[in-house]
Structures are given as structure tokens and as C-alpha cells.
């Protein structure tokens, strides 16, 4: 699975740490880390929660071009 650089840059743009994003969506920091590294495929519910916190759409963060 490819790295999710879109998620990483969207998080960085808001100056959020992995820990802060993890707390905002109710998961562990390791989960956010695994998603960004492409090691874990999150559920749609978690994707939506991340999108809401980062104020992005699913396409913007999780659609692979």
C-alpha cells in the first residue's frame, strides 16, 4: 500500500501532530502513523472522522490518482 502523503500534508498544514489528530478522531497515534505510512487501511467511519477534523473531503485525502 502506498504512503498517504495527502493526509500527512493536510495535517501538517493545520500544524497538527499525529497525537493531536489521533485524539481528535478517537484512535491511537500508532493508527494515524500506520495510515500515513500506508500500513493500515482505515474504515470509512475513521476516514470520515479524519476528513471532518482536517476539513477535507474523502477524495482530497483518500482518493489515489
Amino acid at each position: 500500500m502506498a504512503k498517504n502523503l495527502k493526509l500527512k500534508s493536510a495535517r501538517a498544514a493545520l500544524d497538527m501532530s499525529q497525537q493531536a489528530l489521533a485524539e481528535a478522531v478517537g484512535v491511537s497515534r500508532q493508527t494515524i502513523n500506520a495510515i500515513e505510512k500506508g500500513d493500515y487501511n482505515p474504515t470509512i467511519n475513521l476516514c470520515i472522522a479524519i476528513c471532518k477534523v482536517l476539513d477535507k473531503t474523502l477524495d482530497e485525502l483518500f482518493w489515489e490518482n
Partner: protein
Amino acid sequence: MKLVPEQTDLLNDEGLDEMQKTYAYKLAFKCFKALYWSMFLLSLIMFFIAIAIEESVIFTVAAIAIELVTCIIYVIFGTKASKVGAINPKFAQNMAKPSVIIGYFVLAVIYTIMYIKNFMKDGDFFIIFFGIYLLIFCGHFIALGFISKKNNKVIEETEED
């Protein structure tokens, strides 16, 4: 300050998030599989030890008890998984075949007859207990056959409208 630590264990999934649960469940599934075959192997080893040390009843009973518990847990897992159609489709297709269920049923009947004949005649220790051992094994496969049928039925019923 808590003097007694909270009751928990390694297999407690409380507090794990979805990623941690996914990985933990995957690992637990593999460990369950390994445990299943290890228990069967252990029961067989105990059975042969029983024969080697002059027909020890304790080892024989232990071997049969281990096998029985292993089969029961496996069947419980299958029963629960079949309710949502979560059994391996290839396995379910093969096990649900009438020939498989009938085959194991015939074997079970043969072992029962063997068991009764030998038991009545005060027969050979090995045949009597190996009969029981194989009977449990056949019973568990017959149960898996019916569980697979249920699994396939659930899948058929939940196909798109």
C-alpha cells in the same frame, strides 16, 4: 491508590482502537489455529504415551478430554461464525457436500460398532479408546458439515435483492 490491579489479561480488547483490534484479531485467529492443531497433537501424544506405559487410564482420559474440549471450542467457533456467513467459503463448500457428511457418519457408525463389539468382549484397550477418539473426531466433522450448510444458507439469503 489502587492496591489491587484491575482484572485484565492479554486477550482483553477493551481500549484498543480499530487498527489495533484488526491486527490483534488477525493474530488471535492465527494463534487459535495453531492452538487447535497443537491440542490435537498433544492429545494424540498423550494417547500413545498411555499405550506405551501399560494402558494408563489417566493419560487416555486426558487425551480424550483434550480432544473433546478442542472439538467443542472449534464447533462453537464454527456455529457463531456461520451465523454471519464468516466461514471460509471453500471450506464451507467442501464440508457441506452430502458425501462428506454421510462419509463421516458411516465412519462413526463403524467405530461405534467396533467399540461396542470390543467393549462387550472386554477387548483390546487400544481399539476401544481409539474408537472413542475417532468417534469424537467424526462427530466434530459431522457438526462442521451442518455448520457449513448453515453458513452457505446465510450467504444465499443475504445476497443482493
